[in-house]
């Protein structure tokens, strides 16, 4: 049973074995509108928590996606180049962005759980 953690910038991270899968939340995709393109990093790149790791573009906006935790990129979701709409249709599943080899698992503890994130989004209105 994998738990999902959330950031204040609306990224989610789910641990599967020793890898972390990262994507953006349903709230984020609603705010963005139709996603037209996702710019993903190359495999092998090392990223630091809080630094930009990807860019998601809709027709009228481009948003940076920040790494929820530090690690090394081991895989990116190649399906997004042909079907960026997956981010809208299935943001928590098929719309995943990348997989990281976790550098420091303790960083996960500082992130929000599902309930906290739901309350956080509530408070944004």
């Amino acid at each position, binding site marked *: 049973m994998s738990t999902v953690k959330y950031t204040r910038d609306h990224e989610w991270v789910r641990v599967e074995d020793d890898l972390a899968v990262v994507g953006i939340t349903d709230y984020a995709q609603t705010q963005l509108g139709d996603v037209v*393109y996702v710019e993903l990093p190359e495999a092998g790149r090392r990223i630091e928590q809080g630094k930009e790791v990807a860019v998601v573009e809709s027709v009228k906006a481009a948003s940076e996606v920040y790494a929820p935790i530090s690690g090394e990129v081991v895989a990116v979701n190649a399906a997004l180049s042909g079907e960026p709409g997956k981010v809208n249709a299935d943001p928590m599943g098929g719309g995943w962005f990348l997989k990281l080899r976790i550098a420091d698992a303790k960083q996960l503890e500082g992130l929000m759980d599902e309930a906290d994130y739901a309350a956080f989004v509530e408070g944004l209105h």
Partner: protein
Amino acid sequence: MRYLPLTDADRSAMLGVIGAASVDDLFRDVPRSVWLDEPPALPRAMGEIEVERALMRLAAKNVPASAVPSFLGCGVYRHHVPAAVDHLIQRGEFLTSYTPYQPEVSQGTLQSMFEFQTQVALITAMDVANASMYDGATSCAEAVMMANRLTRRRKAILAGDLHPHYREAAATYARFGDFSVVTRPAGPAGENDLAALASKIDGETSCVVVQNPGSFGDVRDLSLLAEACHRAGALLVVVVAEAVSLGLVKPPGEMGADIVAAEGQSLGNAPGFGGPHLGLFAVREKFVRQMPGRVVGETRDVEGRRGFVLTLSTREQHIRREKATSNICTNSGLCALAFTIHMALLGEAGFTRLAELNHARAALLADRLAALPRLRVLTRCFFNELTVRLPVPAAPVVDMLAARGVLAGVPASRLWPERADLADLLILAATELNTEDDIATLTAGLREVLS
């Protein structure tokens, strides 16, 4: 005043609605210390008659290249623009419309830009083109910056015979964009220069920029240079300063170019003393998301009809702001439309024939010049421009001929003043507008001045 519709009665009525005592009252946020109580001490309003008189007086002080035999090239070319072009671009719907951000009321502009993009891709033999840049020189600078982004390298190598304005603009952008451009020595060396150029490519080179035909007129095969670039992980940027050459010369896309930065002024647009001109920009499909500038895409509307919209906007300044691919906002809209209409009138048959005619006139010019004693034609393979070596510095010869009513071309010293060894070179272009009489007048003048 003829352009201001408000009457004094209107102004009073409007002030009444606003609740202000006077128009000056609306400016109350302006600090009094900087408020001008009187308009600046400058001439007062003039009617059309006087304005025409004043500006015609200035126009009359110039010698238009259309009024005398003229052989000037070097990045700006005098071609015949069919009468229909100028009439169509002056339609108020084209002339006075804005950037097509509201696609439902700008399909005219958007469709024409889509046709323009297609024409540019076709003539350069590249995959995609944008909706134009300011001019060839800034197109070239943007091409270098794009190559830097794609290769993650920061050094560009510029061929020696790249137009000096293009080289200088790229150098300015490089200085402030924290990348470098290295220029090879200039000279009418043709093929030799390309081999030397290729030998300078290393693992830090983002791109090589080469102009074809070169500034001295040389037409070269760039295929080997392209291969050398690609082996080193660098890109080949090809500059085309005379767009009509693409009707006859093997295009950059067939010689391995990754980016084409060109000047489109030759089609649809008069020389205009240097502006406004028309930057063309075309790339390989895989690079499209790093391409700067505005671009139009095809789509459907809600009723399934084909239509056009500005697209890939998220690269641009109004969305990415500091992360944009470029800060560019305007393109050369109306100049691009003039190009599109001219190309539409020419079509395949006309464009190729126009290019053949240009080449034939230049060949005739070369033969007549070669017959002159004391003068040597240096360019063997050319399109419509060539370089001759005079027995004396070229600039004074050009001035003397200008005084006799002949614009004999561009002395190399105008573009390379720092090169004393090029001072005896004269660069001449011939287009479909140069008659045999023009050429005869030129050669007679040269014969006289050089004797």
